[in-house]
């Protein structure tokens, strides 16, 4: 009986962890609206207002999360410093980052991987 309880507990924990890692598309859309990401990256996240800004629609989810974390690290090792993005990522929790990445990844995009 004890073993069974442990297995159930472990399964629940695993489910919780993987749910967090996956990110929530609906929550991500709400965050993207709240922080007005579209005002630079474009309403469809594929037509940024300036060509020096990246297209985000359909980009790999874990890369998007990584990029947001690099702005959080800022000037520290493996960080990125950027006047706009440094301010934008400040209020974001790790869960927010996963949700935003899941949402942006879910959008139809035109990015490609070729040799």
């Amino acid at each position: 009986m004890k073993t069974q309880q442990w297995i159930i507990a472990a399964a629940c924990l695993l489910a919780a962890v993987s749910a967090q890692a996956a990110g929530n598309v609906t929550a991500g859309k709400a965050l993207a609206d709240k922080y007005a990401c579209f005002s630079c990256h474009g309403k469809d996240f594929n037509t940024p207002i300036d060509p020096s800004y990246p297209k985000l629609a359909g980009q790999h989810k874990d890369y998007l999360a990584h990029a947001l974390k690099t702005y959080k690290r800022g000037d520290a090792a493996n960080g990125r410093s950027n006047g706009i993005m440094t301010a934008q990522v400040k209020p974001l929790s790790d869960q927010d980052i996963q949700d935003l990445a899941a949402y942006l990844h879910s959008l139809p995009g035109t990015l490609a991987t070729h040799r």
Partner: protein
Amino acid sequence: MKKLTALLVLAGLAQVAVAAEVVGNAQNAKAKIEMCIGCHGIPGYKATFPEVFPVPMIGGQSAKYIESALQAYKKGERKHPSMKGIASSLSDQDIADVAAFYAQQTRTGEAK
């Protein structure tokens, strides 16, 4: 009068500087992308530090964004160690050529 002439000469120099802005050439990039394709040309290729993540899709990004990202690695505004090493080895012309090359890629099209 001398001041005016000096101003005109300066204005002329500024014009030349603007005209000499680096223009990327996708055809010239062919010999410069070996370092890129080892990671960005392999579907599903992952970097593992400090997070595990698939390297970004760069085909179809605008040339200006790719240029600004590479310049940011070169200047140290972006601190990814391997990208800093690669970007630092590229001239401004190399960066413009590589950016032009990846900007012309499409999701369905073959690399040109």
